[in-house]
């Protein structure tokens, strides 16, 4: 049998394995394009609903256009949520035993998780483009430079990458697809306790403070600032340093959840 190969170096192997895992997921999309389209359109529907059903009753401080305020918030929201697909994919792999096959193979231990995060990043990047297009269609405009626009997209994707790792960790903790629903319920208060839809100034003090420090608020604020869309001057430190926070909080989340997830994955064997 000439099928035995010389093991690659650790680094090479880790990259090759992660790419193989990503390709696996891309093959899934090819088989279920409907699921993917629904996943891309759901945030668009949310945005349209907020803009037209609720937007009429919302006022932006300083008299800006609510659509210009809403779209950056929705972009951040889209990057921060819609993680159930990631969690379910992780739990399904565990339940169906395919993870046991992967783990009995000579692959880099990180590749299953890294592959998953890369795959969902591709999906999220497409999703972000769709949202930008949809925002444009309902009248949102950006007023910054091209560099600022790229920096904004970078910050949004950074938030997404961090949230994906949070989801991967939660999926490894939940282990069963049914458990994911319980985790999902927590998403709603976190989503609304932010500046995505309205200014934290309008909330009770303690809630407004939490909303200010919500990583999603930082990214939404940074997006508004860089895109030149209306925000507000609340005077809190967090609200005044949104760009720094939008870069720092995802990095902090990654520093916490990547090692946690890898550790949890390694512990599947104990």
């Amino acid at each position, binding site marked *: 049998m000439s099928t035995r190969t010389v093991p*690659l170096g650790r680094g090479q192997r880790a990259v090759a394995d992660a790419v*193989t895992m990503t*390709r696996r997921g891309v093959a899934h999309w090819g088989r279920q394009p409907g699921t993917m389209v629904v996943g891309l359109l759901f945030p668009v529907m949310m945005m349209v609903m907020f803009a037209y059903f609720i937007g009429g009753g919302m006022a932006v401080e300083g008299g800006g256009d609510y659509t210009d305020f809403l779209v950056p918030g929705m972009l951040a929201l889209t990057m921060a949520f819609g993680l159930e697909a990631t969690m379910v994919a992780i739990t399904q792999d565990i339940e169906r*035993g*395919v993870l046991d096959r*992967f783990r009995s193979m000579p692959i880099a231990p990180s590749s299953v998780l890294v592959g998953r995060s890369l795959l969902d990043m591709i999906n999220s990047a497409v999703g972000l483009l769709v949202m930008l297009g949809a925002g444009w269609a309902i009248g949102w405009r950006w007023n910054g430079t091209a560099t600022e626009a790229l920096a904004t997209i970078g910050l949004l994707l950074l938030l997404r990458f961090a949230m994906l790792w949070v989801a991967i960790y939660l999926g490894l903790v939940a282990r069963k697809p049914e458990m994911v629903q319980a985790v999902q319920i927590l998403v709603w208060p976190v989503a609304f306790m932010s500046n995505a839809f309205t200014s934290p100034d309008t909330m009770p003090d303690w809630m407004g403070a939490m909303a200010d420090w919500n990583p999603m608020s930082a990214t939404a604020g940074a997006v508004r600032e860089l895109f030149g869309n209306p925000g507000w001057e609340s005077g809190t430190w967090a609200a005044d340093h949104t760009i720094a926070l939008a870069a720092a909080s995802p990095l902090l989340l990654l520093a916490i959840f990547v090692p946690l997830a890898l550790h949890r994955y390694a512990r599947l064997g104990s």
Partner: protein
Amino acid sequence: MHIREERKRSAAILADDLRKTYGTGKAAKPALDGLDLLVPRGTVHGVLGPNGAGKTTAVRILTTLLRPTAGRAEVAGYDVTAEPDRIRYRIGLLGQHAALDEELSGRQNLELFGRLYHLGGPGAARRAAELLERFDLADTGTKAVRHYSGGMRRRLDLAASLIMAPEILFLDEPTTGLDPRGRTEVWNAVRSLADAGTTVLLTTQYLEEADQLADRISLIDGGRRIAEGTPDELKATVGADRVDVVVRDAHRLNDAVTTLTGASGTDAVTTDPDRRLVSATVTDRMAALTATVQGLAAAGIDAEDIAVRRPTLDEVFLHLIGDHPTGDQRKATV
């Protein structure tokens, strides 16, 4: 070179006082309680035991999926905790549940696993094509595995575990839930692999399966080995062979007892009038059979059936398990 030679000489699978405890403190539950196992290269070894005996835990430790709490295990000459990757290139695993990507086709699955074994794209495609052909799955096209029948799924699962032409193949209850045809297919595949020199470790609850396939059998219960030997040796532990005669006419039962007593040379002849059965333990099975046939003919007794049989593995199993209460029962008596 020296190391490689040593590795070749060593056993395919070795477990030495292997222990695994799930949970800690009061909730601690031993799944393996000092398991010993030695499987020479090129043999088929059956691990037989009731549910909860520790079979799957043993397989998961030996295939590097689970770390042992204590004890030592070597596979292909490598320690399971120290060098798991060296083992992973040399083993195949067929677990209790199909370890396949349900959304992908059979070919996509095999190519995925081939890439993960670092065969490269073309190499993985070539190997996938070979295996699909060999397991009669070449015409499944792009159908997703979730639409496969149980037998097809099992064949694909087996194909996936053979991508690297493993030195050692682990089969954890490979035929559970399969219909007789699927079972025969798996058995034939195991036989041809064993003929080609693959070491096979097979866990099963089916005594017949161990009897059919295994060169040696370890009986395990409560996380430890309670008996080991060839199927014949294990059967011999329960007792001697028997000659059974079923007479056509129930009135001749007593005459048959006389004949069988003479033929077997023992007084240990039992009868079951309802089944018109006379049965005797014998020491020399062939001589006893000849003497019985001749004796019945001479006495003019018409027999419906004459058989020499060894005790079945079922009897061995019940006999030995009965002697060794399972963990739960042990706990109950404390």
